[in-house]
């Protein structure tokens, strides 16, 4: 874009600049595009659906303790770049959504003053147990203790998750539902096979064996790194 122009009066560029600011001055009364102020506390820019801030733990159903998806496999604790997640695993197990006994975290702290909401934990979690929240204003009185969110402050229901990230939540639910069906069909197939094998193995207490056989033959959970769906 080369432009050549003879020598002009000294002030011509300045006058053009002044005309430009005048257009913006009068434009600001007319067009919305030239007045970009948003009165923050009263008006707020509508938040985009994929906005992310600090993480939170998802639980299905109504009871936060029982429906917690997190099985405290501590992958997110290892992968978190600024190391701001602290998990302590439970001794006993509780049945998860599919009914399989899994560990659960007795302590799940996230130090929000260190977390940079980079969502690496969401990416590496194999159980869709941790998702990104959208709430960003957490006024607290002390810098360290109050900003260390414990499990109760972090757990939020799945329909809250549907509220803030609708498309992502429905995709996650679809994937989980598919997984559960696969697990259920495999369990049913295993039960059927066990039932077929049992009559061949003549006697044996039918009732309790099939029940325990059904649950135990379902793919035994490997304690540390579970299979990775993604």
């Amino acid at each position: 874009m080369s432009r050549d122009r003879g020598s002009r009066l000294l002030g011509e560029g300045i006058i053009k600049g002044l005309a430009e600011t005048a257009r913006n001055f009068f434009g600001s009364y007319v067009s919305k595009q030239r007045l970009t102020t948003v009165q923050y506390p009263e008006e707020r820019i509508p938040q985009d659906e994929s906005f992310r801030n600090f993480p939170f733990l998802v639980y299905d159903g109504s009871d936060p303790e029982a429906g917690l998806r997190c099985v405290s496999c501590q992958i997110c604790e290892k992968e978190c770049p600024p190391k701001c997640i602290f998990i302590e695993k439970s001794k006993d197990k509780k049945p998860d959504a599919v009914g399989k006994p899994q560990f659960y975290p007795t302590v799940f702290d996230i130090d929000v003053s260190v977390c940079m909401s980079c969502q690496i934990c969401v990416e590496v979690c194999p159980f869709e147990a941790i998702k990104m929240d959208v709430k960003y204003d957490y006024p607290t009185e002390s810098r360290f203790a109050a900003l260390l969110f414990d499990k109760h402050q972090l757990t939020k229901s799945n329909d809250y998750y549907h509220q803030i990230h609708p498309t992502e939540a429905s995709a996650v639910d679809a994937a989980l539902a598919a997984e559960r069906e696969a697990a259920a069909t495999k369990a049913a197939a295993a039960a059927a096979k066990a039932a077929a094998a049992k009559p061949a193995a003549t006697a044996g207490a039918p009732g309790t064996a099939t029940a325990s056989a059904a649950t135990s033959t379902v793919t035994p959970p490997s304690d540390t790194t579970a299979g990775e769906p993604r």
Partner: protein
Amino acid sequence: MTTAWAPITEPNATETPSLGQPAPRPAVPVTSDSALAEQYLEISMGPQHPSTHGVFRMNVVLDGERVIQLKPVFGYLHRNHEKIAETESYLGNMPYTDRLDYICSITNNWAYALAVEKLGGIEVPERAEYIRVITGELTRLQNHACLLGFLLQDMGASGTPLMYAFREREKVLDLFESLTGARMMCNYLRFGGCRVDLPAGWLDRAKAFLAEFPRFLDEFERLLVDNEILMERTQNVGVLSRELAVSSAISGPMARASGLNYDIRKADTYSIYSRFSFRVPLGHHGDVYDRYMIRFLEMHESVKILEQAMRDIPAGPIQNPAVKARLFRPKPGEAYGRIESPKGELGFYLISDGSGIPYRYRVRPPSLINLTVLEDLCLGRNVADVIAILGSVDIVMGEVDR
């Protein structure tokens, strides 16, 4: 009551400076010791200074208003990014690269991803390459707009061009927020592709933004490009010769303003830049005005690239399935990958010893290396020019100090 100008007494050199005391100042050439002797005024511009673009300090020795000696001082924002990188996994380093040049976070991610892909020999699917070009060029647009605003703010135009530039930048950041989830800390690219596909309607919003971006460029040009005061303040100020530019590896718009035809998108083509037709503007004088205009013309070129990229972006996967993000262990070896970031040549040099953690992780910071010639450009000029020249170098302290 002392009427004569009593110089502030020097802390005697013997006592070691405690943390509160300033370090004993370097010997300032004082011609003779009589009270009326000609003394040089030694001021420190920064680290708290309205126009040093962050915590950057210059020890300037002035003779009246003319600069005799200018020593830059770095390190106020030094977090030892490379030491942290030697304790994090490859994936864990990606969010930290956003914090290098915190104005263009996606191009930082791109440079790191490119280096790791060279290290691991990873291909990137078509659609991911197009998304990378689109987000990279959008980053260039908002970085150049941002810089022109700051440069004019340094030269006294009280906020008006800066506000116009930021009005446009906000639109780009909104696009990034809806794509990656965060406005400035995108953490969006992965080794072998991107993290999330374009949400529905994102491409149309991007096209709408692109349609009216040239209007901002024309407005900016009418506002100031022909302005006599700006021309007087910037023409023939801080001239950088082509030989000095090559010898001190100056890269980016600052080098092209001195006529050095070295744009990495063309010279060392990476990704799919060979498919787009765009031109590289070159200046002939290498002064602050040329650096201002080159960035201005580069915005026009970026708009052209974006139009072509948005027109023929294919459907398809956005992530190379073979690459496991979490337990990624490249084979031992080393690789140096570089891209044309808005500030210059941003390179990553990675040495891997086969484990999941990089053995050596080095960032080639364009801002720091472009500052090598700051003293050569500023010698003999006066204080107002030092600020204009520093503004035209376009530094971001996150990248300079790492």
